[in-house]
């Protein structure tokens, strides 16, 4: 109850009450080297024995998984974005419908310089973005804050885990998560999400997804060290002219106090289905209770007014 609710927090595990604890563990997912193989999705399902999440063909590029959920703890997003070649437009007739390769705002969109995930094949050029999404294991985790049963808890590794033997399926964590990660499993009734392979961590092992990733797009380790690695990688990409590269969830000053699992992205977060500026809802819990209290007092006032002038 006394733990901090927002802002920078350097020792999240200590704040949760662990006196003596290992370093905070997390993921750095470098999407610039992701090849969309979905090995992480498969490894996660196998290790954690997560049931199937439906067999659907969505028409969303190679993404038939769609989103994170109770039975999807890693989700590989595939973005196909038309790009406009950086060459000058000579007004010559080209292939494809008019306006193709134009940003939806109507403004021509320049291909990012040094873009290494684009197919530069003229007018119909496509930009390929692939990214393996996962629970962010937030520093200030809304899911954990709102859980009324104490089922969600902070582990000694600074991660956020559901205890299925306590969860009563109230569903409060579901709309509380600013990233749309956790969900109830319909047939089961309880909430599930990534555990950052809590069982493997306890044995000193790497989570299944990171172990399976063939390109080291998913890197596992101590969060402080991963942050340095991410900074170095970002600097390297910027040096090579990939100006669109940016880190997401890396900043300990952001709305959730930084993510335990953060990313290097090549476009705006919302392009990958991520919120551009997530804030933990409990940052406002003081204001919320204040207004609830004032409204309750107003109701008492209404009661008094209703009987005004009436005496026994």
């Amino acid at each position, binding site marked *: *109850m006394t733990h901090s*609710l927002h802002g920078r927090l350097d020792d999240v595990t200590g704040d949760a009450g662990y006196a003596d604890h290992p370093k905070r563990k997390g993921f750095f997912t470098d999407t610039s080297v992701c090849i969309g193989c979905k090995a992480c999705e498969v490894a996660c399902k196998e290790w954690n024995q997560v049931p199937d999440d439906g067999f659907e063909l969505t028409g969303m590029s190679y*993404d038939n998984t769609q989103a994170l*959920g109770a039975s999807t703890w890693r989700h590989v997003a595939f973005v196909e974005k038309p790009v406009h070649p950086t060459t000058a437009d000579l007004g010559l007739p080209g292939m494809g419908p008019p306006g193709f390769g134009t940003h*939806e*705002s*109507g403004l021509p969109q320049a291909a990012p310089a040094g873009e290494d995930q684009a197919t530069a094949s003229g007018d119909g050029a496509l930009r390929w973005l692939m990214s393996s999404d996962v629970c962010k294991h937030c520093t200030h985790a*809304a899911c954990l*804050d*709102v*859980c*009324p*049963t104490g089922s969600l808890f902070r582990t000694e590794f600074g991660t956020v885990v559901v205890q299925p033997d*306590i*969860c*009563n*399926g*109230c*569903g*409060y964590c*579901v*709309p*509380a*998560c*600013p*990233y*749309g*990660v956790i969900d109830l499993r319909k047939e*089961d*009734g*309880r*909430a599930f999400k990534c555990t950052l392979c809590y069982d493997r961590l306890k044995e000193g092992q790497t989570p299944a997804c990171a172990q399976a990733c063939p390109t080291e797009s998913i890197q596992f380790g101590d969060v402080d060290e991963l942050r340095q690695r991410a900074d170095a990688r970002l600097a390297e990409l910027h040096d090579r002219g990939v100006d669109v590269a940016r880190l997401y969830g890396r900043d300990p000053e952001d709305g959730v106090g930084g993510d335990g699992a953060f990313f290097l992205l090549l476009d705006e977060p*919302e*392009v*990958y*289905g991520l*919120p*551009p*500026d*997530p804030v933990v*809802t409990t940052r406002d*819990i003081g*204001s*919320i*209770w204040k*207004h*609830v*209290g*004032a*409204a*309750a007092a*107003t*109701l008492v006032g*209404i*009661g*008094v*007014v*209703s*009987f005004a002038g009436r005496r*026994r």
Partner: protein
Amino acid sequence: MVPQADFESYYGQQIIKTPTWKTPDVPLYLFLGGMAGASAVLAEGAALTGNRTLERTTRLVAASGAGLGTVFLVHDLGRPMRFLNMLRVFKVTSPLSVGSFILAPFASLASAAAASQVTGRLPRLGRLAGVGAAVFGPPLVTYTAALLGNTAVPAWHEAHRELPFVFAGSGACAAGGMAMLLIPAAGNPPARQMAIAGAGVELVATELLKRRLGMLAEPYEQGRSGRLMKTATRITATAAVISTIGRRSRAVSAGCGAAYLVASAMTRFGVFEAGLASARDPKYTVVPQRERLAARRAGTAAGEAHDHASHEQTGLDQVTETAAT
């Protein structure tokens, strides 16, 4: 691929999850809890002023509302048998946890008060239980606004300042309306007055909510949720006017009572649906966050925080003023 013109998304998919809370379970719980909590206040007022009929009726409404509401709440759980896990811990960061510690004593006290009222046994203890229920009643009515407000659902979270007042007013309407319906005699002015005052608070708070929310007011004004809200507002306003004028007729009184009840339920369904609509459309998550980012980058964060604080003050004052009149 990206449907809307002024923001980007991943194949138009929503970002946050749609709340899994079921309709009608949860909106009905919001309504019943509101009616029960405000009825306990009405009951205590009736006891203090020696209005026996009103006391008896409102005690029964408080007890049955809380009981039925609890049934809906438990039914909504994915694992209903584990509902007692709600009382395993107490967390102020979880309105559902706080709410469980309001609902549990309220339901017990209201039931005890009603039982004593019906059987005529242990009148002193019954009365004491009634006082207790009246203490837990108002928070029971308004905490549900925190339940909705403390989520990432844009139309709920951003409305966390006004929603408690909407619910307080709506609860008063329901309690007053129910008592008017059950005791349509001309001798029941407190119930009528409670409904009228509640209507005033609800209408003002709803209007303030829509004005302050900007783009996020859309779900409260458009679509199914918008229609529910609009109809609820119209019925409440009409009932308030008619019950103010036609205070002598039994039929008019009963009719207005029923109208207040229906409108109160519609408000809860409307607010609930508005939240779901705002969760389903990525626009409501992305655009306000983009604007927030832009404002921060422009370095206007300090100025905005100041604006917010003063706005909040006026909003509160206005609602409280209406309540007092």
